[in-house]
C-alpha cells in the first residue's frame, strides 16, 4: 500500500462526483455558517445557549411570574378607564372565609393521605418485581403495569366511576356474595376520590421505587441474613434505608400531582370533598375581574406545595444521613 495512494487514485480529468457530506462541507454558504457558529468557543456557547435560556425564562418561568404579578394587581383583566394598583387584598381574602381555606387544607390533607396509600400499595409490588422476578420477566411484568397508565386521566376516572357506582361492579360483587342488601354509596365520597387518585398516580410511585430497589445489590440482604437478621430487621435496617431516595422522589412526585387534580375530584368527589383546585377554577369561570383572586389562590397553593416538598426532601435527606453514618 503506497502511502500516497489517495492522490494517485484520483486521476485528473476523470469526473468523480463528491459524496453528499464531502459536497456539503465544501459548499461555501455551509462553510460560512460553520465559521460563524464555531468561530470561537465563546461564540459557539452563546449561539447554543441563547435560545434555551430565553425559552426557559419566558416560557417556563414567565407564566409563573405573570401569575404572581396578576395576583398582586387590584384588577385583571384591566377594564378601560380604570387604574390598577399593587395590593395584597386577594391574599387576605383567602384567610377571611372558611369556604376558601377549608378546601385548601383538605387538598393538602388528601394529598398526604393518598400519597401514603400509594406508597404502601406500590412498595410491595415494586419489591416483588425487583427482587423476585427474573430479569427477563421483570420488563414484561413492569410493561404490563404500564399499559393502563398510558390511558388518560378522564378515561381512567370514568372507569373508577363504573367500578364504584351504586349499580357498579363492586356493589354487584358484594351483593352476590350476600354481604350487603343495599348498595353501599361509595361514590361522591373521599373514598371514591382516593381510589381514583391512587389509581392515577400509582405509576409515578412505582417507577422510582422499582429503580431504587432494582439498584440495591441482593448481597446486602444476604450479608444481613448471614449476620442473623430476620426478614423484618433486614427490611427495616437494610432495604428501607437504602431505598429512601426512591421513596422520596416517588412521594414528592405523587404529592405534587395529587394536589393538582381538577377533573377527578369533580367526577368522583361530592360537596364535602371540594378541593382547592375547584375553588381556584371557580374564579376563572365566573365573569368579572376574579382573575387576580384565582391567581393569588393558585400562588398560595404552589407556595404551599413547594414548601412541603422542600421540607419533605430535607427530612428524607436527614434520615439518609443518619443511616449512612
Amino acid at each position: 500500500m503506497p502511502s500516497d495512494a489517495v492522490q494517485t487514485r484520483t486521476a485528473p480529468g476523470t469526473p468523480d462526483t463528491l459524496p453528499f457530506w464531502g459536497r456539503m462541507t465544501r459548499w461555501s454558504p455551509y462553510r460560512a455558517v460553520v465559521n460563524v457558529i464555531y468561530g470561537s468557543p465563546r461564540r459557539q456557547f452563546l449561539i447554543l445557549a441563547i435560545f434555551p435560556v430565553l425559552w426557559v425564562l419566558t416560557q417556563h418561568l414567565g407564566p409563573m411570574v405573570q401569575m404572581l404579578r396578576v395576583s398582586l394587581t387590584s384588577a385583571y383583566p384591566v377594564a378601560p378607564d380604570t387604574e390598577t394598583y399593587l395590593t395584597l387584598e386577594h391574599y387576605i381574602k383567602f384567610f377571611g372565609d372558611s369556604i376558601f381555606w377549608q378546601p385548601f387544607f383538605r387538598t393538602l390533607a388528601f394529598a398526604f393521605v393518598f400519597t401514603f396509600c400509594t406508597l404502601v400499595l406500590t412498595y410491595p409490588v415494586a419489591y416483588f418485581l425487583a427482587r423476585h422476578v427474573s430479569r427477563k420477566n421483570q420488563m414484561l411484568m413492569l410493561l404490563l403495569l404500564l399499559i393502563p397508565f398510558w390511558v388518560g386521566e378522564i378515561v381512567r376516572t370514568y372507569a373508577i366511576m363504573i367500578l364504584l357506582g351504586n349499580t357498579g361492579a363492586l356493589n354487584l360483587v358484594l351483593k352476590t356474595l350476600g354481604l350487603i342488601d343495599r348498595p353501599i354509596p361509595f361514590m361522591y365520597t373521599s373514598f371514591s376520590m382516593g381510589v381514583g387518585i391512587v389509581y392515577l398516580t400509582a405509576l409515578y410511585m412505582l417507577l422510582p421505587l422499582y429503580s431504587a430497589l432494582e439498584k440495591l445489590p441482593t448481597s446486602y440482604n444476604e450479608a444481613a441474613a448471614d449476620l442473623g437478621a430476620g426478614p423484618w430487621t433486614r427490611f427495616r435496617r437494610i432495604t428501607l434505608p437504602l431505598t429512601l431516595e426512591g421513596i422520596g422522589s416517588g412521594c414528592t412526585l405523587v404529592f405534587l400531582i395529587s394536589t393538582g387534580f381538577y377533573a377527578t375530584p369533580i367526577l368522583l368527589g361530592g360537596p364535602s370533598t371540594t378541593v382547592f383546585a375547584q375553588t381556584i377554577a371557580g374564579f376563572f369561570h365566573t365573569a368579572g375581574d376574579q382573575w387576580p383572586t384565582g391567581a393569588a389562590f393558585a400562588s398560595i397553593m404552589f407556595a404551599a406545595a413547594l414548601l412541603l416538598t422542600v421540607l419533605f426532601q430535607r427530612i428524607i435527606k436527614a434520615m439518609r444521613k443518619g443511616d449512612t453514618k
Partner: protein
Amino acid sequence: MTDTSPLVRIDGITKSFGSTVALHDLDLDIAQGEFVTFLGPSGCGKSTTLRILGGFETPDKGRVILDGQDVTRLPPDRRNVNMVFQDYALFPHMTVAQNIAFGLELKGLGKAAIKARLDEIMTFLELDGYGDRYPGQLSGGQRQRVALARALAPDPALLLLDEPLGALDAKLRGQVQKELKSIQRRTHKTFFFVTHDQEEALTMSDRIVVMNKGRVEQDGTPEELYFHPASRFVAEFIGETNLLNATVRGMEGNDVIMDWHGQTLRGHVAPGRKLPQGPATASIRLERLGFGKVRPETENAVQGRVIGSTFLGSRMALDVRVENAGDAILKAYVDTATGSTLGDGPVWIGWDADSMAVLND
C-alpha cells in the same frame, strides 16, 4: 520527506490541568517512518502528549511542528493526523465500510476514489467481506482492525494509537502486536503508540520514550532501555531487575569499580560518562546471572546459597542469598535443567560487567 528534518517536532511543551502539571517542558523529535512508543504509568503525561498531537488539547506553552507546519492550535479536523482510540470509537450506527469511508468523504474524495481506497485498505487489513457488517457484529480483533483501517484510510502523516490493545484478551494481543508492527513496516507510516504495557512497547517499537510525572525518563531503543536503564524508575518499570545499593570507588576507563557489602564489582558505563565516588544503584537483569559449582569466568562473581525456587516451566525463578554480603538476596532466572542441579549447597553466581548498569539517581 526527503530532507533530514523530523516529521514531528515537539518544542518545549508544558500542559497543566488545574494544579497538576501533566507535561513539563517536553522536547521531542519524531522521524518519518518511526514506530515511537510512549511508555509510562497512568498520569505520566503520555496520553496528554498524544492528545496534544491529535489536537484535542492545546498546550499551555510550546509548539508542535508537523511536516514543517506549526499545528499547535489547529483543531483535530484540520490536521493530517489520525488516531486509533482506546475503545476504538467505531460509529455503532454505521457499517464497517461507512466507518472507513467517513474520513475519506470529508477529505473531499470523489465517490469512485473512495470506493477504490476502501477496497484497497480493506484488502490490506484482511477485512474483505465485512464491509456491510456493523461494529456490534464484529469480534474484538476485527474491531481493532476496522479502527486501524479507518485511521489509515485518509493517509495521515502521523498515526496515533492510544493503548489500542488494552481491550483484547492476552492471547490475541501477542498476535496483534506482530500484525501492527508489520503493518507499520509495510506502510512506512509514522506510528505514535501510547501504552503502559512494557512488553507491548518492547515488542513493537523502534524507539521507546519512558515518561514519568510529565518528564522524559529515558529515550532509546528497546535494547538500550532494557539493558542500560538510565534511572531506577526505568529499571524497575521495564522488566524485572535486581537493584544493588553499592558504593562507587572509582573509574577505570569505561569501567566503574564499586563496593557492594565488601564485594568488589565491575560495571560498564557509556563512553565519557563519569560517576562520582559515593553511593549508587546498580541494576542486573534476572536472566543475566549465571550459576555454577565453580567460580565462573565472569568479571563479577559472588558465592551464595539457593533459598527458594519456583518452577515456571522451561525456566526457574531462584532466590539466592549472597554470602558475606549482609544477607542480600538476588533474584534470578535459570533454565530448569541448570536450576535443578544446584541443590542446597553453596553456588557461584557470576555476571559480566556489561550486564550491570549503574543508574544515575
